């Protein structure tokens, strides 16, 4: 069937499997598939969680969905150690454990991702500057190997494989289950402070000054130009300490069908951005909001990706080191707004230091994410942006990528060879491949 990920670009024809148990998953890998010519072929495909990566990292001719592997397997109420199957969503975890006073150590911008996907993409959250990535809070995981063996991996056991798998985009095997550290919180609501910053330099200074804030993220007006380039609203958040616990609410609005893409143009987006930037903000007072509203504002609009129309969109997220950040981000914003491209939601975030995972995205610096409606003249622009990012020592997020070149990837992820060697040694290179991994020459 035709399948695409969250960006709705690209679309590919795939055979889907949804094994209901670890043993069924194992059989799927080991049983050879008959082909038309009568010969048999071994498994060649990729694992897929809830399909919330944007590009082609969870697309292949054969796809193993983990959504039926969705059981909670063990929970220690003293330590907060939770073991769950790979297909369990972060939404499920928050739904079950927030009311009991526990929270995930790291949450990305949507809670509708699976634990397996969060590990494979080594996702980050609004607390990255203090707490690092999701993978850094994985106590251990069990990985189904090409030979059918299930290996226990952690930072102390099979550590090379562990660091290849966290952020490894599913290319080392299939994560069966994982044990993660939940975190005690004093209250589930968030006390938010909103700071309006008139240009890029100021928002970066504010990020530096608020390094002690547990959570920080900025919305940025990517269409503002000149002296207003990079004007932003910076949202700082701390957990409430009132001892009240409520899981993020489910339900809300939905986008029932693809909206005509022409509704999103430089004028409508510019208008939206101007209105949003100028909305009434009192930077002195704290606002108490629900956790879902702070962490997952877009989750309340189901299928918001349909707003970008039938052809879908690309999310362009890059990181550049601190020293080059101001120059690089300014150039990217100038170049994209000159081309009249922009998005409703551009998100700026200061990262803490990187980690030991081979293909993990974050590094000490700033990351900017922008959504671009797919248009024929978009790809050349993104190639231009790539060279700006790479010239400043940055790189692109694999979970969002659908188009970067092999050369771009290999230049910006210097440890790719270690992953390739590990894959060759285990035979994973013959069984676990996505459209992305083939494009990037992994």
């Amino acid at each position, binding site marked *: *069937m035709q399948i695409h990920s969250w960006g709705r670009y690209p679309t590919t024809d795939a055979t889907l499997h*949804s094994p*209901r*148990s670890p*043993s069924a998953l194992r059989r799927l890998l080991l049983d050879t598939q008959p082909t038309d010519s009568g010969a048999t072929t071994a498994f060649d495909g990729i694992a897929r969680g809830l399909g919330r990566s944007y590009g082609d990292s969870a697309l292949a001719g054969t796809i193993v969905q983990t959504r*039926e592997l969705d*059981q*909670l*397997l*063990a*929970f220690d109420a003293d330590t907060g150690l939770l073991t769950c*199957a790979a297909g369990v969503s972060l939404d499920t975890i928050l739904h*079950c454990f927030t009311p009991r006073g526990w929270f995930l150590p790291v949450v990305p911008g949507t809670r509708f991702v699976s634990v397996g996907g969060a590990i494979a993409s080594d996702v980050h959250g609004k607390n990255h500057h203090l707490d690092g990535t999701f993978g850094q809070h994985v106590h251990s995981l069990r990985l189904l190997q090409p030979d059918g063996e299930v290996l226990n991996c952690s930072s102390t056991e099979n550590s090379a494989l562990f660091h290849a798998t966290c952020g490894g985009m599913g290319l080392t095997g299939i994560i069966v289950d994982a044990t993660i550290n939940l975190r005690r919180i004093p209250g589930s609501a968030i006390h938010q402070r909103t700071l309006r910053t008139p240009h890029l330099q100021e928002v970066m200074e504010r990020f530096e000054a608020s390094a002690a804030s547990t959570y920080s993220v900025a919305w940025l007006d990517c269409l503002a130009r000149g002296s207003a380039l990079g004007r932003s609203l910076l949202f700082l958040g701390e957990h409430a300490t009132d001892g009240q616990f409520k899981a993020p609410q489910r339900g809300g609005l939905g986008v*029932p069908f693809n909206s005509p893409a022409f509704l999103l143009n430089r004028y409508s987006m510019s208008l939206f951005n101007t209105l949003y930037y100028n909305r009434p903000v009192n930077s002195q007072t704290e606002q108490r909001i629900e956790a879902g509203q702070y962490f997952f504002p877009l989750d309340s609009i189901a299928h918001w990706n349909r707003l970008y129309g039938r052809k879908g969109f690309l999310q362009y997220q890059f990181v550049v080191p601190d020293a080059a950040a101001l120059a690089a981000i300014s150039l990217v914003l100038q170049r994209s707004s000159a081309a009249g491209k922009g998005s409703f939601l551009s998100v700026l975030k200061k990262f803490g230091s990187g980690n030991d995972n081979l293909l993990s995205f974050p590094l000490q610096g700033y990351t900017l994410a922008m959504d671009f409606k797919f248009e024929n003249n978009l790809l050349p622009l993104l190639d231009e942006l790539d060279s700006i990012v790479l010239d400043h020592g940055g790189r692109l997020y694999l979970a969002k990528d659908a188009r970067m070149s092999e050369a771009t990837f290999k230049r910006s992820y210097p440890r790719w060879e270690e992953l390739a060697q590990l894959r060759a040694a285990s035979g994973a290179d013959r069984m676990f491949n996505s459209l992305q991994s083939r494009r990037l020459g992994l």
Partner: protein
Amino acid sequence: MKNILVIGANSAIARAVSRLYAEEHCRLFLLSRDAEQLALQKQDLQIRGATEVDCSVFDANNFSVHEAVIDQVLDRFGSIDLAFICHGSLSNQAQCEEHFDSALQEFHTNALSVISLLTCLARHMSIQRSGCIAVITSVAGDRGRQSNYVYGSAKAMVSTYLQGLRGRLFKSQVDVIDIRPGFVDTPMTHAIKKGGPLWSSPEKVAQCIVDGIRKRKHTIYAPGYWRLIMLVVCSIPEVLFKRLKL
């Protein structure tokens, strides 16, 4: 805290319903053919908040064990507040048209095994003089359609049986609920091309079911708009309907 018996516990809808009841700290007794799944589900439901989870491997097509299994549940729980029957199989219509053996097998699984279980449950529940029996049938039972009438007629048999049983158990204060899901995205419907506004997730259907049971509805369409759709489908004159490739 309620005592809930789930028959066909490994079905996608049953799994989702069990989870909702686990969050309400119910005691659950799960029956399913698949021992590996039962063990996984037991852990899962306990972590989600169930007060107690018991399970037993059970094949609904083995009619001779039905009585003993219900006794086993009653020995464990003392009483049953909700018996939720949701096992079933989606028939291969073409094969059933050619081979009566296949059709008979479908009637065994989707209708006769349910009626056998209802016979045992009704006896115990009428003595208990409380509780609720909820059975998953299907919108396919509302009207015979050429594409799916073996499955549909098996479900219709159960629906009609439930109507009668509802009247019989009314004076014993036992509620009988007929649950008719529409298109649900589950492993049972794996072979069918999905997508479009009429398909629902098992979680969504489960929420409709739990809400409907709480309100003690007689017939739950899940989701509710299927009541309207089936009203339209059932009101098409036969002279026209027989010409439609539905």
